[in-house]
Each structure stands twice: as structure tokens, then as C-alpha cells.
């Protein structure tokens, strides 16, 4: 189970770091046949931080082995099942890779890989978030303002017309 996990992670990891062939058009606009297309080799995918790559590997492993780890842990963390069964489960979970543990995942900014100051709803660090919001690229986000703002609109209806 762990071996297959490692193999599949290797396959996933190669897409993280190894070079690949990227096909791009020679000229901007309509591309017809293959003669108008050139292929350039992408040397490396630019990640902002290598710790981001490690975090990505952990997330993929949790996606694969997380449920098993949770279930084996549920066998351990109770006082109903016999001790032998729990010892067996202890040994099984010790064999599992450490990166399959969900607590090792740390939310980082997806743009800058900043580990602190993260807004979960947008998965961005506060600095990146602010840069985007200032240019009106965040839907529904405005500068905060409270007090006598004028909103909600209250239409004043006159009681006497003259």
C-alpha cells in the first residue's frame, strides 16, 4: 500500500519538477497546421518556493492515504477494542508514511507561498489579497467604511406636497 503510494507520488512528482515540452504558437492569432506551431522545452516549472512543493506532495498523499490513516487511528483511540487489536493498529500506522498525516499540511498562499497571514476563503496571503483588491479584481470586495455611509438607501417621502 505504501509502495504503491510512493510510486504514484513519483509519477505525480515528476509533473511538479521535471521538464516538459510546451507547444506554443509561433505567432499570436489563428494557428493552422503544425508549421505554425513551435515547441519549446520548459526547463522547470517555476514555483515560488520549494516548501510549496513539499506541501503539495503532502496534500496529494493525504488525498490518497488519509482515509486509511483516519480509520486505523479510530481503532487506536478508544477503550472498547481489545489491546491486541490496538497494538496491531499501532504498528500499522507506524509503517505509514509521515506525509500522509493531515496535520502536516499547512495552508500557504497560492501565489507567493507565504505561510502566515493567510485568508482561507481566498487562499491568499494578506499582501497579495490587498494587491488584487486594490485593482478591483476581487468580486464583492470593497474598502471598509462604516458610520453615515448613505447605504442602505433611504428614500425620504414627503408627508406634505406643498
Amino acid at each position: 500500500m505504501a509502495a504503491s503510494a510512493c510510486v504514484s507520488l513519483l509519477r505525480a512528482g515528476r509533473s511538479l519538477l521535471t521538464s516538459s515540452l510546451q507547444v506554443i504558437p509561433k505567432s499570436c492569432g489563428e494557428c493552422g497546421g503544425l508549421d505554425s506551431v513551435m515547441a519549446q522545452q520548459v526547463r522547470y516549472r517555476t514555483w515560488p518556493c520549494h516548501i510549496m512543493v513539499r506541501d503539495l506532495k503532502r496534500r496529494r498523499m493525504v488525498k490518497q492515504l488519509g482515509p486509511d490513516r483516519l480509520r486505523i487511528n479510530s481503532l487506536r483511540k478508544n477503550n472498547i477494542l481489545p489491546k491486541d487489536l490496538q497494538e496491531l493498529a499501532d504498528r500499522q500506522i507506524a509503517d505509514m508514511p509521515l506525509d500522509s498525516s493531515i496535520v502536516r499540511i499547512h495552508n500557504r498562499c497560492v501565489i507567493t507561498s507565504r505561510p502566515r497571514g493567510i485568508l482561507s476563503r481566498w487562499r491568499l496571503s494578506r499582501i497579495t489579497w490587498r494587491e488584487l483588491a486594490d485593482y478591483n479584481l476581487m468580486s464583492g470586495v470593497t474598502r471598509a467604511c462604516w458610520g453615515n455611509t448613505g447605504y442602505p438607501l433611504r428614500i425620504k417621502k414627503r408627508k406634505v406636497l406643498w
Partner: protein
Amino acid sequence: MTWLATPHVSVIAGTMTRLLHHGSKVNPFNMAAGRTFLFFSSTSQRIVGLGARLSGVKRGVHTAGCLLKKDSGSSTDSEGEVDPRLVAAAKDVASSLGGGEKVESALLQQLRRHEVATSAGKSAATSAGKPAATSAVNSAAADSSSLGDLISGLRVEQGQKSKRTAPLQDRGDGSVARRRVNRPEVKNFRQEFQQMRPTQPRSEQGVRRPVPQMRSLFEGKRLGVFMQEEVNSWQPDEPTLWDEQQAAELQAQVDRPPRNGFEEMIRWTREGKMWTFPVQNDQGLEDEAAVGFHEHVFLEDLLGGFPEKGPIRHFMELVITGLSKNPYLTLQQKREHVDWFRNYFQETEPILRASGSLTA
């Protein structure tokens, strides 16, 4: 002149040899050696007559009766008839070999083919209208050419020899127009086409190239190398990393990168990376809307396969209670959760029994 007799007898396949010997024994007219040559040539004439006789015969299994000449009594046959003694000899040979009707018809087909070949050679040789006295010589000469081919390749079909000597009509598309000859039952179209291909004269044939015999795949005796059960049990190899890399490169040649941001967003939406707008919180879980709450809450049916009493039962009942209160998992995920535990307990049961902790 007996030189002609010996190759004639020795070259033709064993069955034909037996036929001719049989015929020579039976023939009461040619006892002297001087007339032996004439006898064999007349045999070829009889074979020639056979083909002409068969021109009116429908396709199918050839019986001896269709080859018998109508008027009997003359030693030398006219054009288009075969010696009934040959036919009788063929029947005797077939009965001795066994196989019945099929063997007999095959032998008679051979007879007919020989007659066709010699008739073609004879007609080509006697096109100038030579006298009958020398016609025997000419037919012998024609026979020698076909005999030489007989010597060279016994497995070569008779159809090639007849086409070599007779002029062929070439159609525009490369296929050759056949002469009006009733061919024996041809097994498949490919064989027929193979026979009609014209070959070079022997003088021009430098290297003997092997004739590719196009055999049908589903005929002949089975070798028994591959058996159906074994073949069905073969599993294809798992694709290696190199295979995946090659496939990805091939796909990269086909897939064009998105030309603009709109295409990129369309692509991501189709892949499921982007929300569809207006945003639905249940995007991806549309099937769960059809599942009633009772299936999520009443999960006691999933407790089949666990022991009736004991700590494991207690543990699983707690698990079921927890799942019934979980609004985040789909029904399939809940079932998989319980199935995992069932599988785990079944696997660890022998280990626990051996250690003595499980006594149920």
C-alpha cells in the same frame, strides 16, 4: 522415345503415377515398347479431352460419371474426353487411400487440371495447324514445358501453368481476365487471385523467389500453441513511466494552449477547477440530492458481516451512530467506510485468534 515416358510418370504426384501405371496395365492395345510413347501421349490427350468435357460441368464435387466419355471403344480419344480407365483408376486409388468422396473428387480435379494445361499448350503449339502426326510431338513439346514446371514446383497450382502458356487478357485495373474454364471450388478469393498472376518465362527467371502462399488464418490443423483459457488469463502490462511520458508528449502535440484568458477559464471550468457561475455550493454533488435522509440516518443494515456480540459490535455501532450524524459524507462514502472496517476485521481475525484475545 521412352525418355518422355519416364519423366511423365515420375514427376506427377504419386497418385497420378499409380493411375497411369494402372492405366497401362489395363490398356490392351499398347503392349509393345514401340508404342509406349504413343500411349502416354494419348493419355495426355485424354487429359486434354477431360478439360474440354468439363467446360459444361457445373462447379462442385466432381464425380467419375461426369468425366466418362460418351462413346467408348477407341483407344485414342477425341478432343475433350478422358479415358474411363483413368477415371476407374482414380476411383480405385481414392478407395484405397480412404477419405471417400472428397479424395475422389480431388483426384479427378487433378486430372482435369492436367488436361487443361496440356490442352492449352497443345492449342498454342498447334495454332499454325500442323498435321496430326506431328501434333503428338508438339503436344509432347508443350508437355515438356509444363512438365518442367511440374518438376520445378509440385506445389504450384495448375492455374499458373495454364496462364503462362496461353495469352492473357489484361484488364485495365491489373487483374487478368480469366479464360472460360470451370475452376475447382476455390477456397477464398486470395488464392484465386494468386493463381491468376502471370509469371516470367523460365529463361528470365533468375532467382527462384518463394511464392507467398496466402493461406487463410482459420483453416488447417491447429498447432495448439495458444489455448483460449490461457490467452484469456493474460493481463496486459501496466503502462510504465516511459509510456505515460510518451503519451503526454503526444497529447501536447495535439492540445493547443489556450489563446486567451477566456479559453483558459473555459478549460478550467470543464475540468472542474473553476466554479460554475452562479455558484452552487453543491457543485459536484448533484446526485446526492436524490438520496433521501432515511438512507443517511438508518444505517443498521450496514452492520451485516460483523459479529453479533462483543467489543467489535460495540465499536461498529458507535461508528454507525457517528455516520448517521455526518452531513458531509455521501452515502457511497459512508458505505465504503463501513466496508473498510469489515474487511479489516476479517483480515485480522486469524491473527487475533492466534494471540488469544478474540474469543467469539
